[in-house]
């Protein structure tokens, strides 16, 4: 259970948002909407613990996320940057990124995930020869092998084609059905079936 209480965010001397609060139970989806620069990414980074709130508190199972050791084990965050290395191959990137997050993924599981996301045959190529959309998929492949309950995704569908978007949607729904939690921002309209869908809309 993730809970946010009256969060406030300042960037320089500009107030991006104030008094943002919600609570998210297993199986629930939070969709954050708003224009670029309205504070969506800052909210997501704040929920991960990368940005300190100016005021307010974020709690994971009743404990402030700063003090919860369990939180980092429960969270998968994918930002708008891909977090992959051009010099490494898809498999290497996937296995290393999972390893950094604390979960060891075997070679065969990694190959399988890459194949499922549509990179069959390209698993061993250095990422620098792949297209933008394919690089994005290398990053998103982490979700196929992740076992964390909370996903925080910043524009996960950017640069993806319709096939991949469909795949991601069914993946999100599968995650939610199994009691996962999902927080995401998207540009495009996306219907995800969920027990409850919360929405935060940033104006300005």
């Amino acid at each position, binding site marked *: 259970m993730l809970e946010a209480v009256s969060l406030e965010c300042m960037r320089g001397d500009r107030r991006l948002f104030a008094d943002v609060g919600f609570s998210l139970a297993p199986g629930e989806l939070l969709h954050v909407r708003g224009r670029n620069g309205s504070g969506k990414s800052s909210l997501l980074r704040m929920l991960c613990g990368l940005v300190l709130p100016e005021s307010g508190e974020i709690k994971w199972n009743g404990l402030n996320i700063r003090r919860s050791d369990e939180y980092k084990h429960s969270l998968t965050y994918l930002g708008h940057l*891909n*977090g992959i*290395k051009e010099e490494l191959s898809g498999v290497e990137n996937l296995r*290393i990124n999972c390893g950094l*997050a*604390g979960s060891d993924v075997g070679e065969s599981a990694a190959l399988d995930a890459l194949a499922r996301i549509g990179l069959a045959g390209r698993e061993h190529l250095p990422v620098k020869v792949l297209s933008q959309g394919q690089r994005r998929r290398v990053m998103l492949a982490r979700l196929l092998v992740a076992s964390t309950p909370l996903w925080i995704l910043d524009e996960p569908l950017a640069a993806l084609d319709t096939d991949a978007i469909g795949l991601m949607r069914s993946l999100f729904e599968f995650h939610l059905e199994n009691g996962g939690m999902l927080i995401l921002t998207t540009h495009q309209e996306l219907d995800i079936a969920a027990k409850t869908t919360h929405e935060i809309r940033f104006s300005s």
Partner: protein
Amino acid sequence: MTIVMWVLKRDLLLAMRRKSDVLTTLFFFVIMVSLFPLGVGPEPQLLKAMGPGVLWVAALLASMLSLGRLFAADHGDGTLEQMLLCPESLALIVLAKTAVHWIASELPLVLMAPLLGLQFGLSGDALWVLALSLLLGTPVLSLVGAIGASLTLGLRGGGVLVSLLVLPLYIPVLIFGAGAVDANASGLGAGGHLSLLGALLVLALLATPKAAAAALRISLE
């Protein structure tokens, strides 16, 4: 595998795929050192006296220049954020990254230095002391430099700024490092200098990863 092992493996793999980075630092060092005789003249006595200092200052500058690579790439592609979120102490990750950075960009200098010392007419004994002092001193440079590198992440003019922050902090290492070779040459024995360098290394190993981790958190917020 533990998370730190993954960091080590990843950074070593990347260093091997980017061999040119290793070579640029090394050649910078070689060129720097070779410029001094051209600047002050080829008088053997003078070169012999200057040698240790020149090699050490060149190692300092080479180390400082390579700092840009320590975190910048990971910062640029978002991997650093992932490292902040991973369930392992950030200080330990910083230590692992710094260790690989040292192996990739400083260890080659340490190995090359005795060869360059020959150009300055240093004796066999002095070459040993020089290599040993660099071996003990350059890790301190990388460790202290990690703080400067993380504080200046993403700033305009970060490269010049990092030199302003880091070079004054390098001074004790320079003094004891170059001093070790001098002390050996004057017959005083380099033991004192080398043990002080060792003490600095222990101090740096204990204190700097935490400071650099704090700096990374500040810079990424």
